[in-house]
């Protein structure tokens, strides 16, 4: 059906998207690479000296980098564990015959639609605030000392906020996967004498494995670039206690005007994301072809 003529038209139709995406990817990235080799500070106009790998050396040996790296991994890993394990549990629960299933779905999915700045501020002020927050009221009611979440456990607090926003996403995707499970298969397993745990491990889990992989892939892409939640809650602090790689590059380039150093950090973030992406793509490839 596809003639040479229709192929030419097809190529013409694809070219705007391909050209735009190619330009969007390659031009700024090339500029970032170039800047990363310069001594370039916005406060010192006109001075763009080529300094080789000095920016990288400086960025990689900065203690802030190690803190940010550790926080990035803890944040992504922590949220992934909470949302996948919690997501499987909640999806299993929602998949059972329940009263008010429609309303329950609405309650469970809602946090996913809340913009990051709103959820961060609501949690920070109305829940985690040590004086007026709801958690402080509850602590006082129970006769306990209020806990200053964002000052004493900043990273954990951010993990809680982000996990609250992404748990619904995992639940929704996994619930959809559960609903496509063949009921007869489960009944057959039950007839063969498999208990609930055995049925879950040998029938349910393999069936939703693909959905779990998709959840991990999509969440990782978004979680590596968490920014707004940190900006409005802790500003990366105290010290570097809640600074991730994205936030560190932002501070260096837009707050300290160090374009060279920030660019080196940006490139390191790109390399890190690519390493993660290669692992994920392999995992996905295995799961999607099976």
């Amino acid at each position, binding site marked *: *059906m*596809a003639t040479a003529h229709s*192929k030419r*038209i097809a*190529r013409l*139709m*694809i070219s*705007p*998207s*391909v050209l*735009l*995406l190619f330009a*969007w990817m390659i031009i*700024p990235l090339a*500029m970032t690479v170039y*800047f990363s080799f310069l001594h370039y500070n916005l406060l010192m106009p006109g001075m763009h000296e080529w300094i080789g790998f000095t920016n990288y050396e400086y960025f990689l040996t900065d203690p802030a980098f190690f803190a940010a790296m550790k926080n990035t991994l803890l944040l992504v890993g922590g949220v992934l564990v909470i949302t996948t394990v919690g997501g499987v549990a909640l999806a299993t629960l929602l998949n*059972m*015959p329940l*009263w008010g299933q429609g*309303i*329950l779905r609405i*309650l*469970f999915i*809602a*946090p*996913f*639609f*809340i913009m*990051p*700045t709103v*959820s961060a*501020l609501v*949690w*920070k*002020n109305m829940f985690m605030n040590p004086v*007026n927050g*709801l958690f402080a009221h509850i602590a006082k009611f129970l006769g306990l000392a209020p806990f200053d979440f964002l000052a004493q456990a900043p990273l954990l607090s951010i993990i809680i906020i982000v996990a609250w926003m992404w*748990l619904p996403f995992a639940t*929704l*995707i996994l619930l*959809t*996967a559960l609903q*496509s499970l063949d*009921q007869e298969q*489960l009944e057959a397993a*039950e007839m063969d004498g498999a208990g609930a745990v055995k049925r879950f491990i040998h029938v349910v889990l393999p069936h939703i494995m*693909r*959905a779990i992989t*998709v959840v991990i892939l*999509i969440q990782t892409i978004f979680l590596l*670039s968490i*920014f*707004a939640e940190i*900006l409005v809650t802790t500003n990366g602090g105290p010290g570097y206690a809640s600074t991730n*790689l994205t936030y560190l590059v932002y501070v260096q380039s837009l707050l300290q005007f160090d374009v060279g150093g*920030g660019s080196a950090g940006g490139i390191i*973030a790109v390399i*890190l994301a*690519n390493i993660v992406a290669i692992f994920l793509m392999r995992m996905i490839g295995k799961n*999607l072809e099976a």
Partner: protein
Amino acid sequence: MARDIPISRKALFSALAWIIGILIFFPIFWTILTSFKTELEAIASPPALFNFHWTLENYVEVQSRSNYFLHFANSVIISLGSTILGLIIAIPGAWAMAFVPGKRTNGTLMWMLSTKMLPPVGVLIPIYLIFRDTGLLDTRTGLVIVLTLINLPIIIWMLYTYFKEIPGEILEAARMDGASLKAEIIHVLTPMAVPGIASTLLLNVILAWNEAFWTLNLTAAKAAPLTAFIASYSSPEGLFYAKLSAASTMAIAPILILGWFSQKQLVRGLTFGAVK
């Protein structure tokens, strides 16, 4: 899991699900509730659940103190603008790949998705400097451009997944019956493509509405959408719970409602049909 579980177990699991559901939804409920309290009642200890003086004054205050509607309009223009522009660019491409697949189609699709894996912070500085030098900083045009490019891979993938499901035989059958190309497009293709385009539009409006990294870094006052406007409440002088709640409620309400209606498409769209 079986269909005929005893009623006592159904009651037990329902109770459990309702408790968890209410806990998950509670922060949103609490925000909406606080938006109707006075500032004093909002920080009162112990907090009042329903027995307070319901008031709308916070909503009036939010608008009179800062131009809330400007930021609301910015959000609408930026999210709709970038989605529609993205659709205009993506529809022909997705169409061509779905109906005239070539040897390189799969590779092209994978490459497009891989641009999503590029962390925004890796290209923040050049974009910021280009915008500064071209006067695009703090403009709606600038944000529409950036958000279009960011969401383009997702738009193309979603459209491709939907178009792929339109069977080619129907088109051939129409052609055999002597339908002209024009009739084929208007009466056969469009009705089958519109639902897919509509869900893509819906989902990308949601994604663009909530996008915060670029809006926070590329806007200041004029072009700031609600994501950036709300962030201004993080400064100590903005610490008014009731007003923060009112502004938040107005910022999340439209997308919350839109999101509830599009749950089903959300799963298909976000997983590119990989989970059914």
